[in-house]
């Protein structure tokens, strides 16, 4: 599966548009990590536990989008966008969407 946030793939032709595909993932903070980062808050700096948490969450959302694209027979997703929204204290939703297409020569 080819992924890109451009609107085309250089040197490849879009044969068929299959519409929008999407994936989302909601994650909450782990209590232990939360306490540790509370301490970290005093001195500032990067909160590695959260960075990893959100990274994993994004990967999962992307994975779901790819699965949806595969199930409708696409071989690439173009014009991908990410969005993040806070839905409650300590929980964030990661949403990713794009256009599923069929390319003439995917390799």
């Amino acid at each position, binding site marked *: 599966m080819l992924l890109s946030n*451009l*609107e085309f793939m250089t040197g490849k032709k879009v044969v068929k548009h299959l519409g929008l595909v999407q994936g989302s993932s909601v994650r909450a903070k782990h209590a232990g990590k939360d306490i540790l980062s509370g301490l970290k*808050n*005093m001195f500032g700096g*990067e909160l590695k536990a*959260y960075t990893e948490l*959100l*990274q994993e969450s994004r990967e999962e959302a992307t994975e779901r989008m790819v699965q949806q694209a595969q199930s409708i027979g696409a071989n690439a997703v173009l014009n991908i966008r990410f969005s993040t929204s*806070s839905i409650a204290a*300590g929980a964030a939703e990661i949403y990713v969407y794009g256009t599923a297409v069929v390319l003439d020569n995917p390799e």
Partner: protein
Amino acid sequence: MEQIIIVAVLVTLGYFFGRHAEQKHFKSIIEREQTLNALPAMASRMPPHDDQYQQTLVSGNVVIANDYFKTFVAGLRNFFGGKISTYETLLDRGRREALLRMKEKAQELGAELVFNVKYETSSISGQSRKNIPIIEVHAYGTALKKL
């Protein structure tokens, strides 16, 4: 009285540790930016037409928090209004770090260019800790490797 002492201690600790951490971070950002200058990231959506590229989505993210001293100063500033420069450095650090992480991933793939770079900034501190700002910056784009 006790509370005032606790706040004073936290502000002092935050000032020294926070300043040290920030200076160290900025030094590392500047160093890495210089080594990654050869790999430009652009907001343009149109790569050069005459070449064929292998396109891959790359992204980098960072969650970063202010120290207690800066939060305290910003709280005072909030009262009088005006520019809050302590938050500006926080966002600057976050954006540059996220972009660097994205570029590092592009470099691992052997890409020469990163196109259509987008930034996304969100506050994740939630309602439980209203006063301490924690931000997440996510930078993503398409890495192009010449075929």
